[in-house]
């Protein structure tokens, strides 16, 4: 079965992870622009990060047969420094034009401050202007309230719910997100947030319409194989294969294909692997024999 991980921070993962993901059937990923664990202090740091998502990381993924897409945006954790935030917002329209970008994100609330709301709103407007979907991070603290505020802001801006993916849902936030007509993402983590068993229950209860799962694997304790593992958990629970395929492949493809930058037929075609390739003179290999397929 073809698998898609539509929220994973590959810059923080090793090639072991890419290999394991490829072996488990992950054919494509979306890597959202986010923070690095501590706040950046220069606008240039954002710019170089965006470039790495569009350059080296895309190349690294391709070396393992994985198609890499990304989202570009100012994340909520770094939206409270107006001087930096303004400078980042200024560069976003240019970066949205680049190949590989499939949405504006991750945007949203973190502490739910006025500054966060301003930059959240302005980026929704940028997405509408660029005709791109949006990927929304919901806060981990005061999540239900933050999600309610998110849905209200999305409505207020008038962006189509079908162009909106609200991520990191749980039992408390999912009903309202589904009612709003937006897509609902779920990040499956080893010890916190959502897990496979609870995800199975949510699929059984709410169905597969607009439901998406991801690993949100990053530099913290997380697992880049959570999409394959969730697919397996669903199969073991007796959920129909077409349903599993809808949640783990068709839905994320359909959502991000709305960008016009991801072709559903092309993304389903295996990428040929040629590890002899270099990116700006750099190889992913360190003495290994190059794989080609």
């Amino acid at each position, binding site marked *: 079965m073809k698998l898609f991980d539509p929220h994973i921070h590959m810059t923080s993962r090793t090639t072991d992870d890419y290999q394991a993901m490829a072996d488990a059937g992950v054919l494509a990923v979306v890597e959202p622009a986010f923070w690095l664990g501590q706040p950046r202090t220069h606008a240039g740091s954002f710019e170089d990060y965006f470039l790495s998502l569009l350059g080296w990381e895309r190349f690294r993924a391709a070396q393992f047969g994985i198609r890499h897409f990304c989202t570009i945006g100012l994340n909520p954790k770094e939206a409270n420094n107006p001087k930096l935030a303004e400078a980042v917002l200024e560069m976003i329209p240019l970066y949205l034009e680049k190949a590989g970008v499939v949405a504006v994100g991750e945007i949203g609330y973190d*502490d739910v401050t006025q500054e966060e709301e301003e930059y959240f709103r302005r980026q929704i407007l940028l997405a509408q202007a660029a005709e791109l979907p949006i990927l929304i991070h919901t806060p*981990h603290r005061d*999540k239900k309230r933050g999600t309610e505020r998110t849905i209200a802001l999305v409505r207020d801006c008038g962006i189509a719910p079908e162009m909106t993916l609200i991520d990191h849902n*749980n*039992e408390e936030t999912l009903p309202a997100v589904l009612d709003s007509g937006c897509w609902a993402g779920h990040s499956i983590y080893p010890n916190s947030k959502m897990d496979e068993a*609870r995800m199975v229950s949510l699929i059984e209860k709410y169905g597969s319409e607009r439901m998406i799962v991801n690993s949100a694997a990053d530099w913290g304790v997380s697992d880049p194989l959570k999409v394959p593992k969730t697919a397996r958990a669903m199969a073991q629970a007796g959920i129909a294969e077409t349903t599993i395929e809808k949640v783990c492949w068709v839905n994320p493809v359909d959502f991000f294909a709305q960008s016009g930058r991801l072709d559903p037929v092309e993304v389903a075609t295996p990428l040929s692997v040629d590890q002899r390739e270099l990116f700006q003179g750099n190889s992913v290999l360190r003495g290994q024999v190059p794989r080609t397929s």
Partner: protein
Amino acid sequence: MSSNAPSFSSADLRAALVSLPGMAEWVDDVGSGIQTPDTLSFRARYAAAQRKLRHVEARPLPSSSTATAHWTPVDWARLWLLREGLEQTPDSARFAAVETVFEGGELGEQVSLLRSLAALDDPERYVEIGVSACRTNAVPVFEAIACENVYPSRYFPQLNFNQMVMKAVFLGVSLSRVVGLAQRLDHELRRMAYDYAAERVAAGRAVPNDLLLLGYAR
């Protein structure tokens, strides 16, 4: 003397520092020519204090309500350095100078700076730095502002205080370490604690005991 002024003078602080074995030489060494905190010269001394003073034996120093027993000699030395440096800094440039030291600091420097925030002149002017520090996921840095530190309960806006407390719960940092929690506990924070407990119950997971300190009743 305003209620925000530190409870000990720089002269007292210097005298206390030089009483620590091994510290006098360093104080004399750097004592002349301390520049404003945004200079490379200052920042290098602030950074180097760790490896130069890490062997100085910790002893109780004149404490006030703005300092606690967990400060290391390096923390004290850096506080003194910073206050001296800010004396050289025009009033309008002081926030930017402290911000430079914070943003440009590695983990240890950030910890020292955050511990010392309430002991600076006009501490409330640095509230953006304290709030920004809470955004880190590096636990020692978070603890430096959130724990055993009077700064948040004295100077943080309520929204930011509440978010800091909830983040402490998330990071597994004990709320008993948050100074002034009972005084700043408001209706909104109680509501956030209650909602979080409900979220944990819905997920079939244990409710952290610390939520009891926020008024949650099982």
